[in-house]
């Protein structure tokens, strides 16, 4: 058991650290208004600098401009960037999840056309999977792609929960190309231009009042035949690759979204009455226990990664723990501080307001527990009523049931 770097890792860390020390003066602020194009441009430029220094796309193969390194090196970069207080790359989704999917399933033309500009921040990407009626049940996407006589495709439908859409150049979109086969079989993945004709992007405001996501509407967007990634009808398999890299990205990510027990303890420590109250202390002790556990679960994940294993679904349990512990922290802070903790200018406003929605982001806790119960614990699945039924008939059934 060893939490320290190997000599090689320590050497790499030193390298990263000294590069950051030298260049941090050129970095933009870590947070800014994502609607401000000057700010976004500064983040693009910073991503380019990181990429040129070999600090972006660590795990991408060298032939695509990456470093061909392992996940531990990616973690080292993440840690050093966080420690130095500068922002990381702008396009986490592209570089972490969509680029690897293009590397796995894209054509050579697609790889040479898109990967370089993605890596350097010139073209940011977004993920166009979720829909209003296809959240946890992603295979229920209704966005329709119709093939024209010339082989090009026309896309119509609505996507939702799209991060970065407002300044993305391209999106990877999951669409239904055949409604007459069972739902997992009739989907195809497309590359779509976000400035194409028929694309409308609308900010989706959250409880906080901020538009942290977007809705994206497609009204007869035309894309060429070479926009297909991974083959027609293979959309589900291609999507699973993205989801696998999503888990990996989260596994490599920071400790629990920045919800750290020391931060909460610090906020409480100035209130002497609260610090002496046994009930406050139990609550702080319990939620901190959970957050400390998550930190070491992260180290266990890294251990697995360093042995070449890919994090299993059980790593999703860390998200459950983190979110619930952070909710408990918000509760405690608001109880101690009082209504001012809920004020828009409070340090805790965003966390308290954002968490209830975060609980269902990336699949609800219920879906996650189903998956883990079945794949990790080996419990039998729920009866599936949608198996083998053509997608079009499923929809009709649902409408009938509600009508």
């Amino acid at each position, binding site marked *: 058991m060893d939490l320290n770097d190997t000599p090689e890792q320590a050497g790499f860390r030193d390298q990263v650290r000294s590069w950051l020390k030298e260049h941090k003066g050129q970095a933009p602020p870590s947070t800014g208004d994502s609607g401000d194009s000057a700010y976004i441009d500064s983040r693009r430029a910073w991503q380019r600098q990181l990429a040129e220094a070999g600090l972006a796309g660590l795990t991408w193969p060298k032939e695509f401009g990456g470093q061909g390194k392992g996940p531990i090196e990616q973690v080292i970069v993440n840690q050093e960037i966080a420690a130095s207080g500068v922002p990381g790359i702008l396009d986490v989704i592209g570089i972490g999840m969509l680029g690897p999917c293009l590397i796995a399933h894209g054509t050579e033309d697609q790889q040479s056309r898109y990967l370089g500009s993605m890596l350097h921040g010139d073209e940011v990407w977004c993920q166009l999977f979720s829909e209003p009626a296809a959240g946890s049940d992603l295979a229920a996407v209704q966005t329709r792609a119709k093939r024209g006589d010339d082989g090009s495709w026309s896309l119509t439908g609505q996507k939702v929960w799209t991060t970065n859409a407002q300044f993305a150049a391209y999106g990877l979109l999951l669409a239904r190309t055949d409604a007459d086969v069972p739902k997992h079989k009739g989907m195809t993945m497309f590359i779509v231009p976000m400035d194409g004709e028929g694309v409308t992007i609308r900010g989706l405001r959250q409880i906080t009042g901020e538009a942290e996501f977007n809705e994206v509407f497609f009204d007869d967007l035309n894309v060429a035949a070479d926009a297909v990634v991974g083959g027609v009808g293979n959309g589900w398999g291609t999507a699973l690759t993205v989801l696998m890299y999503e888990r990996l990205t989260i596994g490599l990510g920071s400790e629990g979204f920045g919800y750290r027990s020391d931060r909460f303890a610090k906020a409480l420590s100035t209130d002497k009455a609260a610090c002496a109250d046994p009930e406050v202390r139990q609550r702080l002790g319990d939620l901190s226990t959970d957050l400390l556990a998550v930190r070491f679960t992260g180290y266990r994940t890294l251990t697995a990664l360093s042995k070449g294993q890919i994090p299993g679904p059980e790593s999703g349990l860390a998200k459950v723990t983190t979110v619930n512990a952070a909710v408990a922290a918000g509760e405690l802070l608001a109880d101690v501080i009082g209504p001012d903790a*809920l004020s828009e200018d409070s340090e805790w406003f965003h966390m308290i307001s954002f968490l209830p929605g975060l*609980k*269902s982001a990336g699949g609800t806790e219920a879906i996650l527990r189903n998956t883990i119960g079945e794949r990790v614990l080996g419990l039998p699945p729920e009866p599936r009523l949608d198996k083998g039924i053509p997608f079009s008939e499923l929809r009709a059934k649902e409408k009938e049931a509600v009508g």
Partner: protein
Amino acid sequence: MNLSLSDEQEFLREAASGSLARVKTVEAAREALEDPSALPDLWPLVKDAGWNGLLISEERGGAGLGGFEAMLVLEECGKVLAPTPLLGLLPASAILDAAGDESLAAVAGGDVRPAYVPARPPSDIDAEWSVESVSGFARGAAVRIAADGSVTGTVAWVPDAPGADLLVVVGVDADGAPAAVAVDAADATIEPATRYDATRSLGHVTFDHAAGRRLQVTERDLEYAWYLAQTLIASESLGSVQTTLAMSLEYAKERFTFGRAIGSYQSVKHELTEVLRRMENSRSLQFYAGWAAADKPDEFALAASAFRNAAGHALDHATRSNINVHGGIGATWEHDAPLFFRRAQLSRRLLGGTHDAADRVASELLLAAAAA
């Protein structure tokens, strides 16, 4: 044994529901987060319905109704997040009525709007009357009422203080004994303190030797006002739980995933059954509080505190479940779910909060055990 509403109570509830339905209060709750002027002025509606005189004796121009009826009205307000000034007004009017104060005719007539500036009674382990602090875990000292009736001190997070004409202030006299005075609102400093839930009018009220008119009330009257306020904010929450549950149920029946309505899954079904369980428990305790208010004054502190505790937690749970059941869409600005969530988060921390209410339940039970 008859724990149901009388015909008059049913009528009161339906009338409240009907008149509130004429105003788009939930939409206003959202708009007012960005533009406070979007809040409707419900004072004319309150006066039309006569709720300002609800707790004032008939011989003084009021309706002469009791605590339970007041709870029923607040429950209807809570269902639609109606920004009425009743949470501040009703306990104030109860104190004024107990004192037979000269302002009663004007209050009953709707010409003067009073607001209650509360103080929490002592418990088994805390001998002092105390008030809400602006910030932090420790409670503040009650305002001091001098022999000439003048008042000094600060009470934070006072419901419906902004815009009130008359402040009915509970504090302690030079001997530390509880007392109450009526203070012209113009003689106090009222700093508006709305937070998170735009429908909840709040203010920090500061008195600096403000002139006050001593009210001839008993300690019991002042305790009653505190616990009445607990039952009113609890009733609001109970009303909000009902709307929230209805919203969840509708969605759970019409939303499909993996080929089934989501309400057919145990995780959703059991979570909503839990909302029902908490709602029914709160309803039962509302009956307890209503009965104690009228017929069992010795148990009112216990009943009101238990009701407050149950309803506050029920609403927190219901609004979180509602967001969960709706998935991401339930956490968006345009949805109603967040408005009820905001209501739950703020309300649970006012007037001592559910935390103090739970402590008070323990206090009452331990006092009774020690006395037995």
